[in-house]
């Protein structure tokens, strides 16, 4: 890409025939789409921040809510989300290695790294499903909440959380959890599907014939964006 910069210096940018941004239109529009998507996530996260600032006293401490770990009975706060973050960062690295291999027209390496990226994405979606399951089922002892049963407010023993009640604290925490991690999880799922399509194209040699692997780079942008959003969700939802 340093070539682009050199080219832009040697030619007048606005005289036509050369893009002032020095970037192909496909990549540029992927970036613009990602900006708009980032605005959506920012809106969701700042709505979360608003509610959190409004109810700081009754807001559940995420360290007390997300304590489960597979094959382990005790409680380790945040360990599982840490693992999920690791999985997603790892799959981001394999993605960028696939892009790098694409720049060398190394089809074998692209195939290998795309494969591991898809595996990482599936592992992440699975982890999220597991996390949702534990959040919905809740703890064994549960909690007594004043909830609406058949049109009347009653003190009832409840377990876990759904969109209308939440054993850990304010119900809106559960709503935000389902909405934000759900929206992000759906992005990961779509990313896996798109990656899989591109993976098949790589296997078929479509990009070998085309002479460049820019499609891998474009889906790579989307995949890194999913990782980027998770970094923020991880901070604002689980850590703070």
């Amino acid at each position, binding site marked *: *890409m340093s*070539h*682009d*910069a050199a*080219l832009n210096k040697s030619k007048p940018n606005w005289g036509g025939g*050369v*893009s*002032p*941004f*020095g*970037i192909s239109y496909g*990549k*540029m529009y992927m*970036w613009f789409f990602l900006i708009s998507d980032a*605005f959506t996530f*920012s*809106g969701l996260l*700042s709505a979360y*921040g*608003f509610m959190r*600032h*409004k109810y*700081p*006293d009754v807001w*559940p401490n995420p*360290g007390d809510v997300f304590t489960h770990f597979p094959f382990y009975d005790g409680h380790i*706060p*945040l360990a599982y989300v*840490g693992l999920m973050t690791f999985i997603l*960062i*790892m799959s*981001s*690295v394999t993605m*960028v*290695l696939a892009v*790098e291999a694409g*720049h*060398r*027209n190394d089809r074998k390496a692209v195939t290998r790294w795309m494969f591991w990226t898809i595996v990482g994405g599936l592992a992440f979606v699975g982890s999220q499903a597991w996390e949702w399951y534990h959040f919905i089922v809740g703890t064994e002892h549960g*909690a007594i*909440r*004043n*909830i609406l049963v058949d049109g009347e*407010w009653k003190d009832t023993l409840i377990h876990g959380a759904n969109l209308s*009640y939440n054993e*850990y*604290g304010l*119900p809106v925490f559960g709503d935000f959890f389902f909405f934000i991690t759900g929206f992000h999880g759906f992005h990961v799922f779509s990313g896996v599907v798109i990656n899989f399509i591109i993976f098949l194209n790589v296997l078929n040699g479509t990009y070998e014939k085309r*002479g*460049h692997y*820019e499609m891998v780079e474009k889906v790579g*942008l989307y995949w*890194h*964006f999913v990782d*980027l959003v998770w970094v923020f969700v*991880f*901070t604002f939802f*689980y*850590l*703070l």
Partner: protein
Amino acid sequence: MSEFNDNYPQYELMAHHSEEEGKIKRRKLWNVFWIMLGITLVELMVGFYNTHFSEIALKVIFIGFTIVKAGYIVLSFMHLGDEVKAFKYAVLVPFIVFIIYLVFIADLGEGTYAKKYRMVMDKNITDKPQHSEHAEAAHE
């Protein structure tokens, strides 16, 4: 494309690099990975012992680390650092300006205001479930 304009550059082909350049690039990418892994581990440790930190300190630590990680992802993994300056600014500036605005207005400004007047604003909600929940949360 070339049949329309012979001078039009093939941006797709420009990103190619040789085997040796690739080695350097890969080393850099793995370095970024180790840095991000280290930051995540530190964050988890701080989160684990979050009672030892003040609320402001936690916010500064976590948000600071998050911005560092986001910077590495965007500039290194997404190669925005390699694009021309005009494009970098076209992507980053609208977003950053809007987000600073949103954080200050929605979270800090409106959020604090809503907390101050929440007994007035959502009286019929706080009268019913929230109070008992608060009491329950304190018991556990």
